[in-house]
C-alpha cells in the first residue's frame, strides 16, 4: 500500500511541475498586459546575444529573402502576376531593362533609335549576350522568335495582346491570320527593326515587361513541355532549384553581359511563417515589418529601428463602382459614396499611417505624376446632400460590395468604410467575400455593383494605369468605365510622342476619371521592410525590376 502511495505522490509531483509550467506560460502571457512596450524592449535585449552568436547569414555570400509562390510558369509570356515576375526578370532579359531609378537602360540591345515619327524602333544588339546553358550567343533571330512565340495563339499568352498589341501584324498573328509578324524585321544578326501600328512613346517601356523577353528556341523545341523547369534565359541569375511552396534558389550567371552579380545565390523562402521573427532569428536578410509596430520603430525605441526602411509600392487600391448598375448609374450617388470615406482617419487608426492616402489614381512614383490631380475629400454633409439630390433619394436599392476573400483576414478596412457609409449616408452596404477566381469572373462579366480592387505597375508609364484600365477599347478594362471624353484624351496620349505633352493629356484624363467617381482611389501602399545592416546596396525601388545583381553582403558591417 505504501508503494502505491509513493507512486501516486511521485506522479503528483511530476504533474505539479507540468502544471506550474502551464501556469508560468499564462502568467508571462498576461504579464504582457500591463506593460507591452517595456516587454518589447526586454524581448529585444534578450535576443541580442543570440543575434551576435548566430550572425551566420552575414558570413556567407547567399542572400535569404522571403518570396511569393509563383502563380504562373517561369515562362516570360505566361507571367501576369507580381510573384512570378520577381523571378522571371532575374532569369530572363529583353531588349531593354529598367535601372533602380526606373529609367530604361539597354539590356540585350546595345542602343536603339526611333524613326518614322515614333513608328519604327531599330535595335542594335550586343555581341556578348549568351544563354545560361550551352552559352549560345543571342541574335536578332532570337528576339524575333521570342516575340512571335508570344503571339502564337497556341501558346495562349495572357499578356501579349495588351502589352505588345501595337506591333504591326501582331494581332493578325494572334488571330491566326498570319504565320509571322509583319512588323518584326531582322536586318542583320545584330539588328532588329520593329514597326508599330501607331506612333508610341511608351512602347520602349512596354518592352521592359517580361512578355517580350528572349527565350531559347533550341531548348523549347527540344523540350516543349518541361523546359520551364530549367529555364534558359540571359538574366543575371540562373534557376538552380524550385520546390513548390518551399524555396526558389537562383545562382549567379557569371557571364552576364551587364556585369555579373556580386551575390553567389539568392534563396527565396516561399513557406511564409512569421517573417519578422525569422528575420530577428537571423534566418532571413529581409523581413516585413507590421504596421502596428511603426510608431516604435520610427521613434527609435524598437531595436530594429536602424534596419527599418519604407519602400513605396507603385500601386493603387481603389473601389470600382459599376456605372451600369443601379444605384451607381447616378453620378451623384457615386460621388456621395466617395465623399463619405474618411481615408485619413482610417489610415491613421487602422494602419498606423502605413499607407498613403491616394489623391489621384497614379501613384507618386509614376513618371508623369502630378499633385494637381485631386480626389474627393471626406465631406459627409455634402455627401448626404448629394444622395438626397440623386434619383435614388430615399429608395436606394441594396448595395453589395464584393471583395476577393481568399485569405484569412476579413479586411478591417472594408468594415471601417462600410461603417462610414452607414453612419454618413444611412446605407447598409453588404460585404461579400468571394474566392479570387469567382471574384475575377464576376468582375469580367460586369455583374458586380461595387468591387474592392487594386492595380500595381507593370512598367513605369501612366499608360499602364490609365490607358490599360480605363480606355474603353483596352482588353484589360473590366471596370465597366466608359467615358467618350476620357477615351479621346487617352487615345491622343497614346499617339503623342512628346513626353511632356503626353503626361499632360494623362493628367487631364486622370482628373476626369477620378471626378466621375466610378473609380474611387483610396490608398497607395508602402512596403515596410527591415534589412540586415550587412546587406549593401539593396535597391529601394517601387516596382519589380531585376535588382539582386546590385546587392552585396558585407560580413563586417554591423
Amino acid at each position, binding site marked *: *500500500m505504501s*508503494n*502505491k502511495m509513493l*507512486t*501516486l505522490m511521485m*506522479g*503528483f509531483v511530476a*504533474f505539479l511541475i507540468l*502544471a506550474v509550467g*502551464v501556469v508560468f506560460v499564462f502568467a*508571462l*502571457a498576461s504579464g504582457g498586459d500591463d506593460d507591452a512596450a517595456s516587454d518589447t524592449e526586454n*524581448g529585444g535585449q*534578450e*535576443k541580442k546575444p*543570440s543575434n551576435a552568436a548566430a550572425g551566420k547569414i552575414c558570413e556567407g555570400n547567399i542572400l535569404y529573402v522571403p518570396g511569393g*509562390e*509563383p502563380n*504562373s*510558369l*517561369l515562362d516570360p509570356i*505566361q507571367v*501576369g502576376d507580381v510573384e512570378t515576375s520577381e523571378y522571371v526578370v532575374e532569369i530572363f532579359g529583353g531588349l531593354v531593362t529598367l535601372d533602380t531609378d526606373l529609367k530604361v537602360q539597354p539590356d540585350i540591345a546595345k542602343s536603339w533609335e526611333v524613326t518614322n515619327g515614333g513608328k519604327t524602333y531599330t535595335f542594335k544588339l550586343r555581341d556578348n549576350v549568351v544563354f545560361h546553358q550551352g552559352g549560345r550567343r543571342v541574335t536578332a533571330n532570337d528576339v524575333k522568335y521570342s516575340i512571335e512565340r508570344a503571339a502564337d*495563339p*497556341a501558346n*495562349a*499568352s*495572357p499578356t501579349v495582346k*495588351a502589352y505588345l498589341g501595337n506591333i504591326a501584324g501582331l494581332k493578325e498573328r494572334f488571330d491566326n491570320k498570319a504565320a509571322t509578324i509583319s512588323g518584326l524585321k531582322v536586318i542583320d544578326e545584330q539588328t532588329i527593326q520593329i514597326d508599330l501600328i501607331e506612333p508610341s512613346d511608351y512602347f520602349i517601356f512596354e518592352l521592359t515587361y517580361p512578355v517580350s523577353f528572349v527565350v531559347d528556341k533550341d531548348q523549347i523545341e527540344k523540350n516543349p513541355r518541361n523546359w*520551364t*523547369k530549367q529555364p534558359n534565359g540571359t538574366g543575371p541569375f540562373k534557376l538552380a532549384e*524550385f520546390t*513548390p*511552396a*518551399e524555396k526558389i534558389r537562383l545562382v549567379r550567371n557569371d557571364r552576364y553581359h551587364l556585369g555579373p552579380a556580386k551575390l553567389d545565390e539568392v534563396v527565396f*523562402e*516561399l*513557406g*511564409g*511563417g512569421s517573417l519578422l*521573427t*525569422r528575420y*530577428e*532569428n537571423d*534566418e*532571413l536578410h529581409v523581413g516585413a515589418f507590421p504596421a502596428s509596430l511603426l510608431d516604435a520603430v520610427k521613434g527609435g525605441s524598437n531595436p530594429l529601428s536602424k534596419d527599418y526602411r519604407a519602400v513605396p509600392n507603385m500601386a493603387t487600391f481603389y473601389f470600382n463602382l459599376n456605372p451600369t448598375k443601379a444605384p451607381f448609374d447616378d453620378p451623384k450617388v457615386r460621388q456621395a459614396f466617395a465623399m463619405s470615406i474618411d481615408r485619413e482617419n482610417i489610415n491613421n487608426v487602422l494602419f498606423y499611417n502605413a499607407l498613403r492616402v491616394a489623391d489621384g489614381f497614379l501613384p507618386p512614383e509614376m513618371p508623369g505624376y502630378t499633385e494637381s490631380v485631386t480626389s474627393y475629400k471626406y465631406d459627409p454633409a455634402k455627401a448626404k446632400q448629394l444622395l438626397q439630390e440623386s434619383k435614388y433619394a430615399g429608395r436606394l436599392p441594396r448595395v453589395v460590395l464584393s471583395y476577393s476573400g*481568399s485569405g484569412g483576414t476579413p479586411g478591417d478596412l472594408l468594415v471601417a468604410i462600410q461603417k462610414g457609409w452607414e453612419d454618413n449616408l444611412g446605407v447598409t452596404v453588404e460585404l461579400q467575400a468571394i*474566392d*479570387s*477566381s*469567382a*471574384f*475575377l*469572373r*464576376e468582375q*469580367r462579366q460586369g455583374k458586380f455593383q461595387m468591387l474592392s480592387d487594386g*492595380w500595381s505597375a507593370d512598367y513605369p508609364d501612366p499608360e499602364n494605369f490609365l490607358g490599360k484600365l480605363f480606355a474603353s477599347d483596352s*482588353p*484589360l478594362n*473590366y471596370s465597366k468605365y466608359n467615358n467618350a471624353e476620357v477615351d479621346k484624351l487617352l487615345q491622343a496620349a497614346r499617339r503623342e510622342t512628346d513626353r511632356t505633352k503626353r503626361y499632360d493629356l494623362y493628367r487631364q484624363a486622370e482628373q476626369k476619371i477620378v471626378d466621375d467617381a466610378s473609380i474611387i482611389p483610396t490608398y497607395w501602399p508602402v512596403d515596410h521592410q527591415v534589412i540586415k545592416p550587412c546587406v549593401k546596396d539593396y535597391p529601394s525601388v517601387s516596382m519589380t525590376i531585376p535588382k539582386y545583381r546590385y546587392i552585396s553582403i558585407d560580413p563586417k558591417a554591423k
Partner: protein
Amino acid sequence: MAPGLLGYTIRRLLWAIPVLFVISVIVFYMLRLAPGDPVDAILAKNYQEEQAQILRKKYGYDQPVHIQYIKYMNNLARGDLGISTRHRDFTASEVILPKIWVSTQIGFMALIITFALGIPVGVYAAMARGTFLDPLTISSWLALDAIPAFVMVPLVQWLFALKLGIVGLGYQGVWSSHMILPVLILSLPGVAGVARLMRASVISVLNEDYIRTARAKGLKEQTVVITHITRNALLPMITVIGLSLPGITAGALFVEQLFGIPGIGQESLAAVLAPDFDVILALVLFGSFLFVMANVVIDIVYSVVDPRIRLGAARGS
C-alpha cells in the same frame, strides 16, 4: 478465424469502393460547378476569352463534367493524378508526394509523442482512481485538447521564439529543432484521448481475476502493474491510432500554415482557395484512402492479436 478474417477484410474494402466513388463524384462535380475555375485564376486580370478557351481546352474543362470525370478516372487508374494549375510546372503527384512525405513524418512524430505521453498518464490516472488525482490528471490534459491550434501557435511562438529565443521558426527540414513546437502542438491535444482510453483499459484489466490472484499472492504493486497491466491493457490501444489521425490532420492544416511547413495541410488550404482541381481531388482521395486503410489494418491486427474481440466492434473512425 482465418477465413472469417479474410472475408471481413474483403467486405470492408469492398464497402470502401462505392463510398470513395461517391465522394470523388461529389467533390468532382462540386468543384466544376462552382463559379470560377483554375483558368480564371491563372489568367487573373489579364483574362482574354481567346486564351481562356485554349487553356480550358488544354485542361479539358471545356467538356461536359461527366466526360471530364471519366477521363480523370481513366488517368487515375493508370496512376496519373492529373496536373496542378496552381504550381503550373508540376503534375499533381509532383506537388503532393513531397508534401505527403513531410506531413507523414511530422504526423508520425506527433503520434509517437501522443502515445508516449498518453499511455503513462492513463496508467497513472488508473492507479490513482478513487482519489482526486485521477480526474485532475485527465482534466488538465483535456484542457490542452480544448485549445485550438491557431490559438496555441501564437502563444508558444511568442513564448519560445520571441520571449525566450530558444527555437527558430522557419522551416529547415523536418529533422531540425525548429520542428519541436509544431510537433508538440500537434501531439498534445491528443494525449487526453489516449490517456482516457488507457485508463479505462487498465481499470478493466485491474478487475480481472489473474490480477487479483497476483495481488493476493503478495506480489508488489509495481510488479503487477508493469508485467500484467501494461501487457494486457496496451493491446486495445492499437485501435486508438486510427482515432488520432483525424485530429492530427486537422491540426496540421493550421500548424503548417502558421509555421510555414510545406506539408499537405498548407497545400490543401491553398489548393481549395486557388482552386486547384486535381490537387484538391488527389488530396481528398488520398486522405480518405489512407484513413480507410488505416482502420482496416488496425482492425485486422487487433483481431489477430486478440481473437476475443469481435471484428468491427471496438473501433473508432
